[in-house]
């Protein structure tokens, strides 16, 4: 049987969920023997030009134009989309900026920061523009499974992947649901 394909992407987040994924340690070997990891920060493959993956996993909220495109593309190219971590599930800490306009956010960050002299807001065609608000993934595209946690513990991620391998949508038991 062909190994199912897995893609993971890192949007507006701290990479903590991928770190937690790495914290599976030797468990990772076991999982990689059963799935093929395609696009992922772990493989450093960023090319979406493959035809299809079985499961797409998102870490992070949708905060800029690039995030949005990546998510929409992943959604088109995967059968099941799973949101990992509080940022992807709820929006997370980045939503703190939702009370401000993007102009204010950039000014606060690049011009008004204490210690900044002659700050300039970076502006280049390669820099994706911020969206008005940071949104959870399910506010942009349909999501099939949710794994909250900041970050979800490695064993929770392992549980999620094992459920997927067993052909079930992961629904966390109560003791695994934690927002920290």
């Amino acid at each position: 049987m062909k190994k199912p394909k897995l893609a993971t992407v890192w949007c507006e987040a701290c990479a903590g969920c991928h770190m937690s994924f790495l914290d599976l340690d030797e468990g990772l070997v076991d999982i990689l023997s059963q799935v093929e990891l395609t696009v992922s920060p772990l493989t450093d493959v960023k090319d979406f030009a493959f035809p299809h993956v079985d499961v797409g996993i998102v870490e992070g909220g949708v905060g800029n134009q690039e995030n949005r495109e990546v998510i929409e593309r992943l959604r088109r190219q995967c059968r099941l989309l799973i949101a990992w971590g509080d940022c992807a599930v709820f929006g997370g800490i980045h939503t703190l900026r939702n009370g401000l306009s993007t102009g204010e956010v950039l000014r606060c960050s690049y011009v008004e920061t204490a210690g900044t002299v002659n700050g300039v807001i970076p502006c280049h065609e390669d820099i994706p523009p911020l969206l008005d608000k940071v949104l959870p993934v399910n506010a942009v595209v349909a999501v099939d499974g949710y794994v909250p946690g900041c970050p979800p513990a490695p064993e929770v991620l392992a549980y999620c992947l094992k459920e997927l391998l067993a052909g079930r949508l992961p629904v966390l038991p109560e003791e695994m649901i934690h927002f920290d």
Partner: protein
Amino acid sequence: MEREAIQVKITIDGKETLVGAGLTILEAARQQGISIPTLCHHPALSERGGCRMCVVEVDGAPRLAASCVTPVRDGMNVVTVNARIIETRRTMLEFLFAERNHHCMFCPRSGDCELQALAYALHMDHLTVPSSFDAFPVDATSDYIGLDHNRCILCGRCVRACEELSGCRVLNFHNRGPATLIGFDLNETREHSTCTSCGACLQVCPTGALYHRHRTHYAVKGHSRNWQTIRTVCPLCGLLCPTVSTVRDNDLIKIEGIVPAGEDRPDRGILCHLGRFEVLKPSGRRLLHPMARQTDGSWAETSRERALDLTVEGLNRVRDAHGGHAVMGLVSGLSSNEELVCFRDLMESAWQAGAIATVESSEFQNIYDLGPDNGQPFTEASWRKMAEADFILTVGAVSPDRQPAVGNLIRRCLIEHHLRSAVIGPDDFLYPHGTHHLPVKNKDALLLVRLISNEAAKGMKKTTAAAGPGESVRPIETVKATDIVKRLHLDGTAQIVLHEIIRDFVDSVNPLILVGENVAAQADKTGLGALVNLARLKGLDHDRRLRLIVLKPCGNSMGAWRLLNRSGRKHRARAGIKGGLILLEQDPFQGAVDLKIPDDLGFLAVISPCWPDSLDDRAHVLIPKSSWRETDGTWSGLDGCETVFRRKMLDAPAGIQAAWQTLADLAVRANVTSGCTTWEALRRQAEHEMQKEAIGEKT
């Protein structure tokens, strides 16, 4: 017949059961051990039925009912859990999360949030409704209570607590619909509102909307699983409120009132800003080592043995040179009965001390010096009578700094059973809440009392000629009302208020007089006599006690007065003092206390948990002790009616002894044989003495 005595038969989750009629479904279910999640419900508050977390299915009806406000009915069939109910509850919860910003950084780390606990329990792993992300203001103007509207779910627990528990009615809902906010007064900031910072709202808040300014960050709080709770008693004022202290790693996290179980106390378990917030603040630099004054005037660390020896030598020297009357012992009113007994015995037997008194004030007892009158005992009413009185006359100040809990209790009574109340004195702490107020100085207050006492006696003669007064009423002197009015420059309004007060008193059935400590300290014996006379006009109360309560500065001021003045001894003289021993406590108001001791003492030793800044230049030996937070002991309340045991909340720093231990060690060095060399013996002795006092009072 009692409502509860009638039973109705209902079926809960398929099980038939008999429950008391008049219960709500929620109460009935909880009696049966069935748990139903709630959010706006709080056992100490009235029901609101607003959050819909507690919905249940009644008789299979298509619309679910909120169990907290639906009474049971005979034959009712209740289902508390099925897929539809869970789905509804979770959806309602998601609305609460989506409505405002609950991306909280603290609760996941501390686990101290009812909203979050419900999200876990109801398996909320994502939101099916879009979040609003509207930003709401944060009110951080208060030093104690922060209000973050972004975390608020508008359950209204705080609004109900503000009215029903603390009697303030400061908090209320403002605006309508999604713009609804909790607000202080007429949309004031917290700091500029009439809020008294009792913190009842903060205690009942199920989220972090109302939060403690100094104990919210999880770096301070840690996770709730590492918390320890200790039931103890707040010693700051004479009400001795029972509290639950939360401690982590020997650090105080929070102090809360016993709100749901507070029903046996008329204050219903609310605390005040002192007991809830001030005691958490670091007060003073901790004294960690015994210190001795060097010949050049500087301080040097010394051993405990050396410090004890120096103390005994120093006090012996003073006594030998000037006699025992030149030795003074001052002790904090925040000391336990055991410490007081130990201190008094040591000062009396080792140095025959001429003055033994409390640090805070030795003069509030001036009123007690009037002694029994006509064989009538001078026994104050229990503070609990404040909740039963129909008229409370406050003479002098109910200080918000010293007696906030008394103010809270009276304010609630004003709202709840239309208590009539009047304040004669410089303070208007109660005034904004429907109280008559005559703003006069303390000494003038007593002058007015003389007038009121006489006028009320005259008024009662007219009205109670038929009923027959319980006690003989006799004006103690003749005062001309017009003279007093002239002397105090009372204007027309003030005169009307004065007549209202007299009329209220005459009309009242169960009046009570509160005496501020500054008034009780007045030397005006005639005025104080008039005060006691006024309290006797309506006879003694049901417990055969005087209808009068003297407000005292500290939690154990009454215990101190009784124990230090044992057998009628007066330890007041401050003249000719040449040396002494002072036992201080960690007191939030310590800085304000003027010890009134001479500058040129031959010897002064201070036993204190903190560095005694005010005595820094006068003391010769400093010995550290554990603070009241770190000491067990028995305390007597405001009226001396009840003695309670309070447990320590924290452990003392390593190597620091309790005060009684230090005093016992001093007794050994002073060659005094004391019966109280163990804690148990000391406790028995203190208990015995307090019982003797209580019996002595009755006879």
